[in-house]
């Protein structure tokens, strides 16, 4: 029964990832696109953790931890570039 739930969660997060991709391409403002990219990172974290549940190992949490840190840093870098033109002043 867990396998059906994991398949459902996979489908939900994949659909969410596609909707974020739509928002990145057709977003109205820059803030929308930065937010959609950050949300894509978080959905990718969820997909990796779900894959780790399916495979039964714990290796994939390391990858999702790294992606969490990189997503946060890259969102802040995008926002600082739009605000100031420089990331590290």
């Amino acid at each position, binding site marked *: 029964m867990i396998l059906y739930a994991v398949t459902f969660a996979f489908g939900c997060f994949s659909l969410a990832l596609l909707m974020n991709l739509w*928002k990145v391409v057709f977003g109205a403002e820059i803030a929308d696109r930065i937010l959609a990219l950050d*949300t894509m990172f*978080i959905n990718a974290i969820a997909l990796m953790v779900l894959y780790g549940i399916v495979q039964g190992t*714990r290796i994939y949490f390391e990858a999702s*931890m790294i992606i*969490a840190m990189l997503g946060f840093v890259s969102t*802040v870098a995008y926002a600082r570039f739009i605000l100031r033109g420089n990331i590290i002043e």
Partner: protein
Amino acid sequence: MAVVLEYLITAFLIISGIFGLVGSFGLLKLNDAMSRLHAPTKATTLGVGGVLLASMANAFATGPYFSVHELMITLFLLLTAPITANFIAKVHIHQKESQDSLPRAGEDGIWATLNLGDAKEDKS
């Protein structure tokens, strides 16, 4: 015990899937940029937290160890989601809002500083 854990994991997975979907759907369908900021930062964080809870319960159910490794990711997301939301709001304000569309700042005019005029007169 194993049946209870199985139902618990299934419930966590289904609820978190729905939360993740609703968060991204709100990003798509809400009609103001500041409203669109709320949906992914809150709902998607909750969805990922649910998936991580399901993973912790699964590791407890199928192995000899009890892993709190996933709590680190949840904690990191809960700490950094407000910071990213603050930066994105700042981008929106600096680009799209003018001084007329923002709320009035009170006596100072720009920064809404507290007026200490009476206290200064007492000291001198």
